[in-house]
């Protein structure tokens, strides 16, 4: 009764909350309910509830299909490599940039390095097309200038992941570093002063003061990274896809788009999407509980 009273007294707060709640239920939770069609043979006339049940047949069909193995490996390789390679770089960058004492230089470098974050994926991929073009692109001109042979980077499957990851680092390194720079700025300067008196070199201070101080931030960012491992930026993979590089660039999300929206196999595509989300969610829970046990810090 006391609780009800509190709700009634604070009704105005709920009014403020209402639009967000409506949005959340309509556009987040209703689609979650729509996931039911993964277990049905969905047709638009009967709707979600009326369509006949199909059990796990769509999942089974997907697991047994010839694309399953390559889709899963492509998705895992792309996301795991992305995470392992792109994750440490902003940390190193922040640690080194933090060593520069001139405020002006630091500000300038930061401003420049997070500028690419604003560039849209479409423009980024077009830039890649321009710079990596086999005959007129700068990179290939360098290669041929030094006697090498021009490579059609954008069309070759074996180059897909490298181009994807490198351009990702180029675009997001500065942005991801902001959070570490913020953590570094709160390191107690006395620690450094004491270490300097003790004759510790800059490298030693980075290793024994800076890194331990930002470790909680690093762990949290890593868990978040693992939690989104299966949702690798599909826009970019989609835009970088060409007929020739499909053997590496076809990932689960691009495949869901194709069979779901282009071929209208709604139930099948939903099943594949659900499979993807479930892996994602499991990885997040696992990494979170692992970090809680090992590091003592976690998301919840």
């Amino acid at each position, binding site marked *: 009764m006391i*609780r009800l009273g509190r709700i009634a007294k604070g009704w105005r*707060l709920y009014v*403020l*909350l209402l*639009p*967000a*709640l409506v*949005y959340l239920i*309509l*556009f*987040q939770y209703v*689609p*979650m309910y*729509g996931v039911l*069609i993964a277990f049905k043979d969905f047709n638009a006339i009967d709707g*979600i509830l009326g369509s006949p049940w199909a059990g796990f047949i769509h999942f089974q069909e997907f697991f047994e299909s010839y694309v399953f193995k390559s889709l899963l490996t492509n998705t895992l390789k792309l996301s795991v490599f992305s995470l392992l390679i792109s994750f440490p770089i902003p940390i190193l*960058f922040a640690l080194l*940039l933090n*060593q*520069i004492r001139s405020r002006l230089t630091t500000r300038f470098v930061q401003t420049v390095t*997070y*500028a690419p974050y*604003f*560039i*849209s994926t*479409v*423009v980024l991929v*077009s830039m890649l*097309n*321009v*710079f990596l073009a086999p005959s*007129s692109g*700068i990179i290939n001109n360098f290669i041929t200038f030094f006697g090498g042979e021009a490579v059609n980077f954008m069309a070759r499957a074996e180059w897909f992941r490298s181009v994807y990851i490198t351009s990702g680092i*180029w675009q997001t390194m*500065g*942005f991801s570093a*902001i*959070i570490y720079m913020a953590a570094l700025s709160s390191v107690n300067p006395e620690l450094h002063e004491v270490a*300097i*008196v003790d004759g510790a*070199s*800059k*490298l030693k201070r980075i290793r024994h003061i800076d890194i331990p101080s930002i470790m*909680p931030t690093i762990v*949290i960012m890593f868990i978040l990274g693992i*939690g989104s491992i299966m949702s690798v930026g*599909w*826009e970019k993979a989609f*835009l970088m896809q060409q007929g020739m590089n499909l053997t590496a660039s076809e990932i689960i*999300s691009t495949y869901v*788009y194709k069979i*779901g*929206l282009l071929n209208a196999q*709604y139930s099948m595509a*939903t099943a594949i*999407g659900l499979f*993807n*989300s479930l892996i994602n*969610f499991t990885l997040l829970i696992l990494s979170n509980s692992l970090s809680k046990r090992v590091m003592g810090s976690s998301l*919840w």
Partner: protein
Amino acid sequence: MKALTFNDRLFTVFIYILMAFITLSILYPLYFIVIASFTDPNIVNKGGILLYPSKFYFDGYNKIFDYKPLWTGYANSILYTICGTLVNLAVTIPAAYALSRRDLAGRTPIMMLFVFTMFFSGGLIPSYLLISKLGLLDSIWALILPTAASVWNIIITRTFFQSSIPDEMHEAAVVDGCTDFRFFFSMVLPLSKVIIAVMALFYGIAHWNSFFEPLIYLTSDNKFPLQVILRNLLISNEVSNQMVLDPMSMADRQRIAEQLKYGVIVASCLPLLIAYPFIQKYFTQGVMIGSIKG
């Protein structure tokens, strides 16, 4: 301060060189696109490093100005960005304030309801079917409503309120008989210009750059925003066919098509390019506020 040891000095030099290299590797490609857009395509296509524009050539831009779909796309993008961002702010700011109040009954379960959607979603097809069922396909609402709020941004805003609106202030207002509405509109909002700017920025950029939603939800050519037009022009290479109609050799066509790409990229990034120096301060602040909570 003690004099630096030799190793430390070496290390500092190394850092400066590395930072210079990183800065250049980010600035140069951007700079290249700009100067290539008005340099003679023969020079650009030869490859090599361009340091300054030589042999000015504006035909590319003339073609771009004449290409109507690009400008329709521009107008659409501006419309979607403004409307979308206004809706985002109207949903995010009040919700974040309500969630920042400790006396909101049921705060924890409501928060969990929000956070869960960050890690699990129905996925593409159920969302698409919902939009189609609501009759929103091929309308501006399909771009605005499904992205009306981002839980991540609500959390950042809530963190801001928790750290910048002291409880005492609210208590004092209550004693004076101030309702939550009045407190929110006449006390909280005026104190929150920074976070409103940050959110407008985050949401605005997301709308301006959004490509996927318009791709799947829109079907009429004249409703496409800039990013979809750009994709057709730049990546699917519709340039040479649509924009270069005058009779000329295949080679010439190819040449101009390449040149157009640079111009189109510059035109599409222009608003951000102009605004960047002014908004980047807010951008950092936003990320910093977010980092308080991790």
